[in-house]
């Protein structure tokens, strides 16, 4: 549905994105993840035809974003990051305008507006002025606006930024519900958002794709049982030597819990090829020690993210200060648009 190949966009001498390539299939939700100023908005703006790329090609819904941009525009719904709305208009008035701007008229327009008002849950608010709405409802109006032409592709730029926790949950489930068989690209720098709503993740940093895979693969790849942590109440027993005495245990580290309530925590390294978690548990209880918690260290998306991004930075030949300056100026460029 969306094919992006070697997309590059320069703001003067600064490259906002470099050789970005990815693909999103029909009905998939892609999480576009990256720190602020990484090039998420730039990529999305190219896909929506806001501005063209310096080089590379992109296809949305089978149409080229450079040569057939009007065909693309008819088939996408876009919600920019700051949710720009005509706040002096009523919800219904604004959605009517959006529908007409997208080429709908007459009864088709009326139907479409009624449909999106219901879909995003704005029935109570339909005749309110947008400026009187809370941020959460404005976000819904923004979503409704993007949906009014029943687009095949939805492009949402940080759709939950600036909302309170309840609104965030609401908007996320709304997006999931709205997705249906639409293709969705959703940018964010909030990691749980991706694990909750997306099928695929593309991590972008400093304008380059760092990793692009399904969420499942990404987390599986970096999870194993070789690192576990145990929490015990020891009653003066030497838990360390019990653990070290187990065959196969490579290393035992005592971890400072910071709480003086008779509990102690250990990080235990086990061999990669063998699941020894059961043996560890048996050994501890066998030695008459209370086992309170045992957990394999699941690698979270946060860690994958940090790992990929810091790996990038280690390999970077340029001095750090310069890099930050570049990143900042890219951000400013984006802001000034």
């Amino acid at each position, binding site marked *: 549905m969306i094919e992006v190949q070697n997309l590059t*966009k*320069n*703001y*003067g001498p600064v490259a906002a994105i470099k050789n970005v390539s990815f693909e999103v299939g029909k009905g998939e939700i892609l999480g576009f993840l990256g720190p602020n100023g990484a090039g998420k908005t730039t990529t999305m*703006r190219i896909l*929506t*035809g*806001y*501005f*063209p790329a310096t080089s590379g090609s992109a296809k949305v819904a089978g149409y080229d974003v450079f040569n057939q941009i*009007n065909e693309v*525009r*008819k088939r*996408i719904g*876009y919600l*920019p990051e*700051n949710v*720009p*709305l*005509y*706040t*002096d*208009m009523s919800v219904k008035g604004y959605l*009517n*305008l*959006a529908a*007409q*701007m*997208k*080429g*709908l*008229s007459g009864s088709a327009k009326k139907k479409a507006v009624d449909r999106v008002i219901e879909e995003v849950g704005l029935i109570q608010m339909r005749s309110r002025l947008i400026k009187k709405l809370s941020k959460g409802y404005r976000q819904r109006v923004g979503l409704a*606006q993007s949906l009014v032409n029943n687009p095949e592709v939805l492009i949402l730029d940080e759709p939950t930024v600036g909302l309170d926790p309840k609104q965030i949950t609401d908007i996320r489930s709304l997006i999931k519900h709205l997705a249906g068989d639409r293709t969705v690209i959703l940018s964010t720098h909030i990691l749980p958002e991706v694990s909750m709503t997306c099928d695929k993740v593309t991590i972008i940093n400093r304008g380059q794709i760092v990793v692009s895979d399904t969420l499942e693969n990404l987390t599986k790849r970096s999870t194993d049982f070789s690192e576990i942590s145990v929490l015990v109440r020891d009653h003066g027993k030497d838990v360390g030597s019990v653990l070290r005495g187990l065959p196969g245990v490579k290393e035992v580290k005592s971890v400072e819990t910071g709480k003086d309530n008779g509990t102690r925590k250990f990080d235990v390294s086990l061999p990669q090829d063998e699941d020894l978690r059961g043996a560890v548990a048996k050994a501890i209880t066998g030695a008459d020690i209370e086992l309170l918690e045992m957990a394999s260290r699941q690698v979270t998306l946060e860690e994958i993210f940090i790992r990929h991004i810091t790996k990038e930075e280690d390999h970077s030949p340029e001095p750090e200060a310069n890099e930050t300056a570049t990143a900042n100026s890219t951000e400013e*460029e984006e802001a000034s*648009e």
Partner: protein
Amino acid sequence: MNAFFAMFKRELAHYFTSPIAYVVLIIFSILSGWFYVQGFLLPYSLYCQQYDMMQMQANPMMAQQMPAPNFTELIVPSLFSTFSIILIFLVPLLTMRLISEEKREGTIELLYTYPVSDLQVILAKYAAALVIFLFTVLLCAIYLYVPELLKEGGGVVEWRPILSALLGYFLLGAASISLGLIFSAVTENQIVSAALTFALLLFLWVVGWAPQSGTVEGVMKTLAESVSLTDRSEDLFKGLIHLSDLVFFLCVIVGALFITMRSLESHRWRG
């Protein structure tokens, strides 16, 4: 066309909800009404009375020095010159937010990604501003009908030269608004947009004084004569329709809309 009308309707509604339209129209009514009644209508009726008295005293010498009172000739051209100065102050109010507000609020980002052309958006905004301006043209037409009501039997007002004057006034306003549109497209700050529009319109008014003062010669003189917007409409106010004046105003409008369009497009390559 659908998108054009949708945008046009929104802009027009915004003029009244904001409420720039009321501000502009009330200011125009008060100022133009004052100038018209106090500066033109009352002096004219005074003049008519004096003229009649002179005629009755049958003093042929004096009567010859006083031209016969003719409303169209004596009042209309200078009345419209006055109105066009009020326009210099009011047009920036009409045009300042048209595009700059979209830029500041970011709503222009959505316009850029909707399946509509920049031209449609610009024309819709221009048309909305023109409609508000047309209310002032209508008011002028009403003013000029008043003497017809005041005098028994009518026949004071000659409609053809007055239509020409109204056309001149309309073209002057339409050109001014198109120039204002350029400045609302180049900045996201409404005050800057209004200030630049005001400065340009003021300049295009005062530049017309230069040739009369005799301080400029040759090419500069021709240039000063030809670019002054207000001077261009003087002949139309008198009831003289030159093709060159019509073409001039048309060129200003088309040129200004073209520049506005290019300016909107520039975000695509400026980065």
